[in-house]
């Protein structure tokens, strides 16, 4: 037991450093994912046919190929075309665009699940199509998509683990380095699993709280809960 505590003392500082990097990559990638996913999701539903098609190719590509291949392509493949990103940029771009594709598809589903009558009613009081989307459709769709986006955030925390493959010293990368330094991969990976679990747990509770705050009777939960 004492040995184990000493061991923990040795490895925790590196793992904390890795945690900061994991959080940074997950955070920036998710944010980029929202920035990309929002307009892409809207374009997929309300855009002209050609735009729907182009955006469809984007989402299909990122949803249809392994993340690892995307990362390798961006990091190791693009330099051949004269585009050399540093590691973090490559990680942000790949994970961000990947997440953007998923977030766009989730948003598309949410937009389409808002009933047609909402748009009709908004147009009937004189709103333009974009006014209606902004003031009526999107606020509802965003609340509906929140659970899916929360899952995406949690998945993202774990997806980030691929970046150690491009030598980013994230939590997983630190685990690799430490496990070969101490020849104790199982112990290190179990400790790292706990780290991920804690990160995921915190994220889960924060996002549930956000979902609850943004909730509206009849939209995100049945009205009985809200009380009439």
């Amino acid at each position, binding site marked *: 037991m004492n040995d184990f505590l000493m061991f923990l003392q040795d490895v925790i500082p590196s793992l904390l450093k890795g945690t900061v990097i994991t959080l940074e990559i997950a955070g920036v990638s998710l944010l980029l994912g929202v920035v990309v996913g929002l307009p892409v999701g809207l374009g997929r539903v309300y855009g002209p046919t050609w735009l729907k098609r182009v955006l469809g190719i984007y989402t299909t590509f990122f949803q249809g190929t392994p993340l690892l291949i995307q990362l390798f392509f961006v990091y190791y493949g693009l330099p051949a075309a004269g585009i050399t990103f540093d590691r973090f940029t490559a990680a942000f771009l790949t994970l961000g665009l990947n997440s953007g594709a998923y977030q766009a598809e989730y948003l598309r589903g949410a937009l389409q699940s808002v009933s047609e009558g*909402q748009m009709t*009613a908004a147009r*009937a*009081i*004189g709103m333009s199509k974009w006014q209606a989307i902004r003031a*009526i459709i999107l606020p*509802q769709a965003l609340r509906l998509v929140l659970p899916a986006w929360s899952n995406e955030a949690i998945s993202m925390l774990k997806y980030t683990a691929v970046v150690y493959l491009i030598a980013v010293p994230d939590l997983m990368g630190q685990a690799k380095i430490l496990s070969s330094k101490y020849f104790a991969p199982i112990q290190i990976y179990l400790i790292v699993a706990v780290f991920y679990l804690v990160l995921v747990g915190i994220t889960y509770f924060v996002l549930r709280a956000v979902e609850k705050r943004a909730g509206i009777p009849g939209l995100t939960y049945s009205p009985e809960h*809200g009380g009439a």
Partner: protein
Amino acid sequence: MTNSEAAKTQPIVRLEDIYKAFGVTEVLKGVSLSLMPQEVVVLVGPSGTGKSTLLRCVNLLSRPDKGRIWLEELEITAPGVNEDKVRQRVGMVFQEFNLFTHLTALENVMIGMTKVLKMDKRAAHAKALEELERVGLANRADHYPAQLSGGQKQRVAIARALGMDPHVMLFDEPTSALDPELTGEVLAVMQKLAFEGMTMMVVSHEMGFAREVADRVVFMEGGYIVEAGPPEQMFDHPQVDRTRVSQ
């Protein structure tokens, strides 16, 4: 028109020879109709005869394939007319209420005022409360649609339309989705509006309402207006020969 007073004023709505088809199905086959100020017209007839489509043409939610429509002095079917501006002047109430799910009753009424009419928040708030008062729901201002009964939802929808100060109100089967015991409160609000002088075009199966409130009842069938006249005539002495009525 037989009413001499109405004849010298300008109609609020004038529909002239309206045709509309969905795919191969011809829904409107040359319909003409005018609404004078403060007039209440109730459209009746079997379902699927184009009543709702005709109504939706008036605020351009449906665009006629052929024919022309005037809203007061403006020909709204003319090219280059801003549909959104047209719709601000025409209130519409739907069978399915279509209240904005994420907004409270008050916000439902306010949103058109702030977003479309660009009224300031405080003025909009006060006016929205007034409109809710008008339909008897000021005490439900903070309720979300899901927390309201069907009749209350429809009254909020009426308040929402009224908030835009429309020149004419369109009602598309406003009580059809309601349980029978809830239709009364909605019809009462509509009757009050009519009494206050609102120009109204109503598609409804509520014959009692038509008889009591309508100035004119228009009977449609198969994409044509087959008969029109004051309720007494329509209900008590219907024309045996259902021919196309010219306006």
